[in-house]
């Protein structure tokens, strides 16, 4: 399914953001919310994950239905998982486009990577 990704703050993301190596932060921000219709049409159920991908990268997220979302729009809390899908172009004024990102969403049986796994492929990620 093609969708527009919006990333942003949530209470759980904010409460965990000064404690990012804690599993609570990981659980709070590796979630992809979809409209109820999209959730059903992708055949998602409790415990099912989604693979979200675009030209910049891809990541697996826990899937949730959110009645406040219009069809075709997904919401991911701001953080390292969402930012896998964000491109570096800043439109000449500093910030990348964290919202309104074109993505593809697919159901998957793959697991969601935790924070160390997410950074494992990058340079010196051995603390």
């Amino acid at each position, binding site marked *: 399914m093609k969708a527009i990704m919006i990333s942003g703050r949530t*209470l759980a993301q904010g409460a965990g953001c000064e404690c990012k190596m804690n599993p609570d932060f990981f659980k709070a921000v590796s979630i992809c919310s979809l409209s109820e219709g999209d959730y059903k049409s992708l055949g998602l159920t409790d415990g099912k994950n989604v693979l979200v991908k675009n030209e910049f990268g891809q990541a697996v997220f826990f899937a949730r239905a959110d009645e406040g979302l219009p069809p075709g729009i997904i919401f991911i809390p701001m953080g390292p998982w969402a930012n896998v899908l964000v491109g570096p172009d800043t439109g000449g004024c500093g910030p990348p486009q964290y919202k309104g990102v074109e993505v593809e969403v697919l159901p998957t049986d793959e697991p969601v990577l935790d924070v160390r796994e997410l950074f494992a492929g990058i340079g010196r990620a051995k603390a």
Partner: protein
Amino acid sequence: MILEDVVCSFCGCLCDDLVAEVEEGKVKRIKRACRLGSSKMMGHGRIKAPMVRKDGELKEVSYQEAYDRAAEILLCAKKPLLYGWASTVCEAQKKGVLLAEEVAGVIDSTATVCHGPSVIGIEEKGLPGATLGQVKNRADMIVFWGCNPAEAHPRHALRYSSNVPGKFTPEGRAGRKVVVVDVRETRTAKNADKFVLIRPGSDYEVISALRMLVAGKGDFVPDEVGGIPKTVLASLADFLKSAKFGAVFFGLGITHSRGRYKNIDNALSLVAELNAHTKFVVMPMRGHYNVTGIGQVMAWETGFPMSVDFARGAAYFNPGETAACDLLARHDTDAALIIAADAASNFPRPTVEYLARIPVIQIDPYENPTTLLSEVVIPSAISGVEAEGTAYRMDGMALRMRKLVDTTYPSDEEILTNIIESVRRQRGTIGCTEA
């Protein structure tokens, strides 16, 4: 010991009514804070000791060794980036500007990936602003556009805006009208009298249509804009004009979307247009508690609010060129000092991959993904809990952050003072190897 009137060091609301219960040098309980504030003020996940990466692994070292290694990295870099600054106090930020000048680097704040476009828009148009106190006491119309304070600034509505009783707004929520414009129905939207669901990326068009309608030029507006029928926009324009004192709060919904700073520029024009009919003010919902402060400090120290490059020997500002994300995307920096921020989590992946290829110095109380990429890690005291200093609320009010408990961790200001001292001592004495 009970400490009253404690200022919260999480978001730009800087709530100054917290009560802290302190016992044996630790904050045991925080009252009145929201979930975000109490989580931060209680403190957890601390970095224990300074560390320097040796043979691929972070090894504990003395603070002096960490300062000297940090200074060496900054001195050997051709164009170091000094990034972050939003979650520390102005006294530390001032030292940061000095250090950037000493090492001919670029100093940039988290504003560039948040409300930087707002700052640019405000430079274009000006800001008909107000204090949050004026909004609390006078505003009968509150507009939240592209922001979700119910989750990002949880006490905003209860202390300053939609739901609080004020001097001339004694009925609180019942006496105010609340408008929410967003691309999804947020928790904030559930508190609105009017919720307008627009298509993602259409803020500029919707704002333009409202400007025309407010100015009485609705004939030029098409039947539908941003997914909203013209009739709905026309009634929204009339609704806004019916306010005695309106306040527009805008968030990253419009700075992070298509149009970026032009969205802000247009929103400020809408507020100017509304002021032809009634009183309206406007304010960005600033995120980190002192992101407003770093803008103030940089403006008075360098003349520019963010993204200042000292490589030419004088302050140079050109967002899109000198902003942190742009520098990393272009590989135009060869070392980074990240303080009171977490670029590894909050930047796009390709820029994080580049960050992992250059030496990174981290100054922060908490371990986070930036720690994983760092060559030097320097743990600091939590400003507003373990160190005092000045911070600016989102409306530009300066408040004094208090020290609640003693700590063995040095403050950000102390760490930066020591790195500056080490830079001056080592300048010209070290041999740098080409990367």
